[in-house]
């Protein structure tokens, strides 16, 4: 213990030598007496005879002051306590240090390095040989045991690598170099298991039967590859370790921050974040990274595939520019130009134009009115589609006669005319979009009428997907995959001659959906002799290797590639490693990104338990040197206060009454800092009385002052409404702290959910769960119905997300929106909806069991009260009144009737929670009255 005590400024201790002198001075100078003016001094004179010895300072005061002085001197010497235990066992023989330096070790790598340095230093002190092995990179480094100095020098050069630890290769080398029992092993572990950790642990245990694993509880966030969805970017963040709030930023190629979002990551799981951004800006993003997380896994590099898609438009014969509005692709071009790059074609003939576009690397090619194409061109197009291109074709009169290869289905000759003068049939509307098609989110346009279409051979429809069909079931849009790409056929023309679809808004949405499914740029190598040379087309990926342009280091920053980064033949199959570090690779102006983490990367954490670690485990956390001098200074301050009191008392200046008052004040301040446990008992009893003497509405205090005040004002408004309109006269609403307050006294608790609310502790949620199981009702209000954000399973408002977090911890019954015959709609008022400040959200309650025997009953109640109700309508804001009975928030839309309905909804909810299914039983009243003979 004493040996762990160190002084940062030991020379200050020389000040202790002054203490005897100080003692002498203090002893001889008693405190000066206070002087009082006192008119009858004459009467006093000569009164004291027995007490005239000259005063000296009392010994205890001298001691107090000497102690005070020595404490200050000691504090100035800055003592610190270093409880530093030795890491390595006191053994002979070499010490083998294995240091994980994959990207998962990058956050806090300095700590790992410090621990390694300490191990080396300890070994150096006892003159043991040290072997140092890093698990990532350095496949050729010398890992044989050497001197501590060498090891320290090598340690300084070890950096975290942007790929994962390759423990398998090291295991074999270690087994060669170190026979069993030949060394003491200390493994400074990373955060990820990587699949090879267990075998590696076994190998280490073979070298040393009591190896040491130095590790910390994993805390790591990693980015999965982002997805460029229809109108936002979806990024999945994997979290290992406790839940954490992170900030995610997107940067453009120059490193400028483009977008930033923050979110709370769930513990040990994946969280999908959504970044809404216009397509143009999204395409600019070159890199996503998690702010503050310095590792290669927290960075996702984006390449050309992410970026804006380019579309080539080719119209066959008749595609003149004389009548622009009648040009076949005008409407396609107008629909696509805001969202994509439309590639201009400089060649005249169709084959040349196609060749130009496929070599330029478009991702979507739109073809219309092309009759028969030359076989070479058809082959090129097939190759292009097979390597990922999306070919979008529109029907024309001559399409059925054209090539069959580039169509998803086999077409029947001639087209089908609907609603013409020679036809019995009416023009057909669109019947449905397939749920598997990209159009599933597009609203079916009601005003579209198809007058003409090309029909497919029914037999060939089985192999293709039908994305859209007419009401009579004939296909309108078919698609078929071919290789990595896809061919899509609209069975109508791209101009309004066959239908009015091209001039509707739905056409734009459908084309955008098609573009969104398309891959990024797909490029074919230009053929040596031009298109018509007849040479065999090749995919260019086979000949030139990918060259690393810039690579990530372990901390996630981009830098020029080092000498070890090799050319990569096939970037698609390359995995991050020493020779293929994550980074950006280039070939012929095309860029591909290789990331440390992809969608499949296994991110299971490294834990001694899961390894079956046979040896000791030490914590990586540095043991902090505990500074002692603040405590010494505090003690000195206390002593100084005591000394001041003593000096006052000795000089008679201390007035007892005032001293008592001051003492009481100090005691009060000290007590105020104490937790008020002593009062809790009384408060609880008081609260129980308050809660039970009158029925009171309760709300959960969220900690957000605005929300809490709104809840309070809202429940007060509802209470007043209840008192006016119903037999219930509630007391003043009460705010509940879920952690400390008893919930059992309240039937209904209003819980406004805010986005920045921390999900409560598990024990708190257990309490809430018990409350709900025992008959209480919680009304959750996400207050987000006014949020313009589109709602779906994936995109949820922040409030909804935090509600999900809250409800994840309790046992939630199956829910349904309040059905029309639910007793809630009849508990007091007859209601069909439950508006609040907004009127867009349903009120969700526990789903009622189907009761087939009781069909036809006007109200169903179930057997109890729904323990949970969820709405997003912000009820409290609609109810909120100021003390002078003014409404605090307008309803949206501002409609007095909606306000009234909101209050009625509140009345019904309260009545429902208080009376349960009583109203549902009222349906029997006629029968009861009849039985009573009335």
């Amino acid at each position, binding site marked *: 213990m004493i040996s762990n005590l160190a002084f940062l400024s030991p020379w200050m201790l020389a000040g202790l030598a002054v203490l005897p002198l100080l003692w002498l001075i203090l002893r001889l100078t008693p*405190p000066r*007496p*206070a*002087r*009082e*003016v*006192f*008119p*009858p*001094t*004459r*009467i*006093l*004179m000569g*009164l*004291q005879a027995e*007490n*005239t*010895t000259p*005063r000296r300072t009392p010994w205890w005061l001298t001691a107090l002051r000497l102690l005070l002085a020595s404490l200050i001197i000691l504090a100035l010497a800055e003592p610190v306590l270093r409880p530093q235990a030795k890491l390595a066992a006191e053994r002979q023989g070499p010490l083998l240090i294995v240091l994980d330096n994959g990207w998962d070790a990058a956050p806090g790598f300095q700590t790992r390095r410090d621990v390694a340095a300490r191990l080396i230093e300890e070994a150096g002190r006892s003159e043991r040989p040290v072997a140092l092995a890093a698990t990532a990179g350095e496949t050729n480094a010398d890992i044989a045991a050497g001197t501590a100095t060498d090891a320290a020098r090598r340690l300084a050069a070890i950096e975290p690598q942007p790929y994962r630890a390759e423990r398998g290769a090291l295991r074999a080398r270690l087994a060669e170099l170190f026979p069993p029992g030949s060394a003491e092993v200390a493994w400074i572990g990373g955060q990820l298991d990587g699949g090879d950790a267990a075998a590696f642990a076994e190998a280490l245990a073979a070298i040393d039967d009591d190896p040491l694993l130095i590790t910390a509880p994993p805390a790591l966030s990693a980015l999965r590859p982002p997805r460029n969805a229809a109108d936002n970017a979806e990024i999945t963040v994997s979290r290992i370790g406790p839940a954490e709030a992170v900030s995610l930023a997107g940067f453009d190629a120059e490193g400028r921050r483009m977008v930033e979002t923050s979110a709370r990551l769930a513990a040990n799981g994946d969280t999908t974040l959504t970044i809404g951004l216009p397509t143009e800006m999204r395409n600019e993003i070159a890199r996503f990274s998690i702010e503050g997380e310095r590792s290669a896994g927290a960075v996702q590099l984006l390449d050309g595939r992410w970026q804006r898609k380019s579309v080539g438009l080719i119209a066959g014969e008749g595609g003149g520019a004389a009548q622009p509005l009648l040009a076949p692709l005008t409407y396609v071009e107008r629909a696509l130009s805001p969202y994509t790059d439309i590639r201009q074609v400089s060649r005249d003939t169709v084959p040349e134009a196609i060749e130009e576009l496929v070599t330029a690397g478009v991702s979507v090619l739109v073809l219309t009115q092309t009759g028969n194409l030359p076989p070479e061109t058809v082959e090129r197009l097939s190759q292009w589609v097979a390597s990922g291109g999306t070919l979008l074709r529109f029907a024309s009169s001559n399409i059925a006669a054209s090539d069959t290869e580039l169509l998803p289905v086999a077409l029947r000759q001639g087209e089908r005319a609907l609603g013409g003068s020679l036809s019995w049939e009416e023009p057909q509307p669109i019947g449905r979009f397939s749920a598997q098609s990209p159009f599933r989110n597009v609203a079916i346009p009601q005003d579209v009428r198809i007058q003409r279409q090309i029909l497919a051979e029914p037999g060939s429809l089985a192999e293709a997907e039908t994305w859209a069909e007419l009401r009579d079931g004939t296909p309108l849009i078919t698609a078929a995959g071919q290789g990595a790409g896809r061919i899509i056929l609209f069975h109508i023309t791209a101009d309004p001659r066959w239908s009015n679809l091209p001039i509707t808004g739905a056409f734009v949405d459908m084309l955008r959906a098609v573009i969104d499914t398309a891959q990024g740029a797909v490029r074919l190598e230009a053929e040596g002799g031009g298109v018509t040379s007849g040479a065999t087309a090749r995919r260019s990926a086979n000949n030139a290797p990918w060259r690393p342009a810039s690579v990530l280091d372990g901390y996630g920053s981009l830098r020029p590639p080092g000498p070890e980064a090799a050319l990569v033949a096939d970037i698609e199959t390359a995995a991050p490693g020493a020779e293929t570090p994550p980074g950006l690779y280039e070939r012929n102006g095309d860029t591909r990104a290789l990331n440390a983490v992809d969608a499949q990367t296994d991110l299971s954490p490294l834990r001694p338990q899961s390894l079956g670690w046979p040896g000791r485990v030490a914590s990586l956390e540095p043991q902090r040197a505990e500074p002692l001098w603040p405590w010494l200074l505090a003690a000195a301050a206390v002593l100084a206060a005591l000394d001041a009191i003593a000096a006052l*008392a*000795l*000089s*008679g*200046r*201390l007035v*007892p009454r005032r001293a008592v008052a001051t003492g009481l004040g100090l005691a009060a301040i000290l007590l105020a800092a104490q937790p008020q446990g002593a009062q809790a008992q009384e408060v609880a009893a008081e609260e129980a009385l308050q809660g039970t003497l009158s029925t009171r509405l309760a709300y959960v205090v969220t900690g957000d002052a605005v929300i809490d005040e709104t809840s309070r004002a809202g429940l007060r408004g509802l209470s007043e409404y209840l008192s006016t309109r119903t037999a219930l006269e509630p007391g003043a609403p009460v705010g509940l702290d879920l952690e400390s307050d008893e919930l059992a006294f309240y039937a209904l608790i209003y819980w406004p959910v805010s986005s920045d609310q921390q999900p409560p502790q598990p024990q708190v949620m257990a309490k809430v769960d018990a409350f709900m199981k025992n008959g209480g009702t919680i009304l959750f209000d996400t207050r987000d119905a006014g949020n313009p954000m589109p709602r779906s399973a994936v995109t949820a408002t922040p409030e909804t997300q935090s509600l999900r977090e809250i409800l994840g911890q309790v046992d939630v019954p199956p829910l349904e929106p309040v059905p029309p015959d639910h007793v809630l709609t009849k508990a007091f008022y007859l209601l069909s909806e439950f508006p609040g400040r907004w009127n867009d959200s349903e009120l969700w309650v526990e789903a009622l069991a189907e009761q087939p025997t009781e069909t036809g009953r006007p109200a169903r109640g179930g057997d109890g009260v729904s323990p949970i109700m969820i709405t997003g309508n912000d009820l409290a804001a609609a109810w909120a009144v100021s003390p002078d009975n003014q409404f605090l928030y307008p309803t949206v839309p501002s409609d007095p009737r909606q306000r009234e309905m909101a209050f009625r909804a509140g009345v019904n909810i309260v009545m429902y929670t208080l009376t349960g299914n009583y109203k549902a039983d009222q349906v029997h009243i006629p029968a009861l009255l009849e039985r009573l003979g009335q």
Partner: protein
Amino acid sequence: MAAGAFPIRHDEIAEARRLASRLPDLLVAAHRVAANAMFGFHGRRRPGAGETFWQFRSYQMGEPAKRIDWRRSARDHHLFVREREWEALQTVWLWPDLSPSMHFRSRLAEHEKSERALVLVLALAELLGRGGERVGVPGLMPARTGRDLPERLAAALMHAAEAREWPDLTGIKRFSEIVIVSDFLSETDTIHDRLARAAERSLRLHLLQVLDPAEESFPYGGRLEFQDPETGVTWLAERADLLKERYHERLLAHRQAITQMTQRAGYSFAVHHTDRPASEGLLVLQSSLTAPVEPRLTG
């Protein structure tokens, strides 16, 4: 004398200014105190020439008939005579002690002793003036009547050259009433001499000892250095709390000595504390002034 302990106490100009600045307030206070004591006390409490009704008595044969109060007699079968109280002008000299020892206030009281003494004297002057008596300040203001006596008295005190503890009694007529408000903390011998000299001149003295409550209860403790404001002499007490009992004994003995001296001379002597309302002191002075005085000159 402790150098510079309370220099302002010895600076007479500053002292006069301080007094002058306080006087308006004190005048107001004195008016307020005097407003509560309404009756005049120059009446002799016996029938005589005067204006105020004293009593009815039965008509005695031989008296002039014009003395009969016919209104009263008509209500009865007897004849009554209305008697009036004998009134005579009287000269009262007032003296507030404004010496340094009076400028003392402990935290137990709200006012200095000198302020209290001034309030009492001014209020008394107002009362006397209202009753038509002649009021003066020995050596500073000749005796006169009037309703503005407090203001005149205050002006006279303001122009006093020095604050003296005891008035110069030369030139005051015999049998005059002299009211002295002081703390009487001087040596008993000094006080004896002064009283004896006054007795020689057959003056009627009314002494009111004004004391701060701290001077009575001695609420001190610990190691204290006491300073006499008159002389500046300091005296160190090691344990002041131990002195309380004996100090009190001595104070009582001092007061007892004064009481004996005044009783022998037939003077009135009373004690007033500054933590009590000023009206109490005024009442004491009033009653001692109105009480029939039987001077025993054989002191």
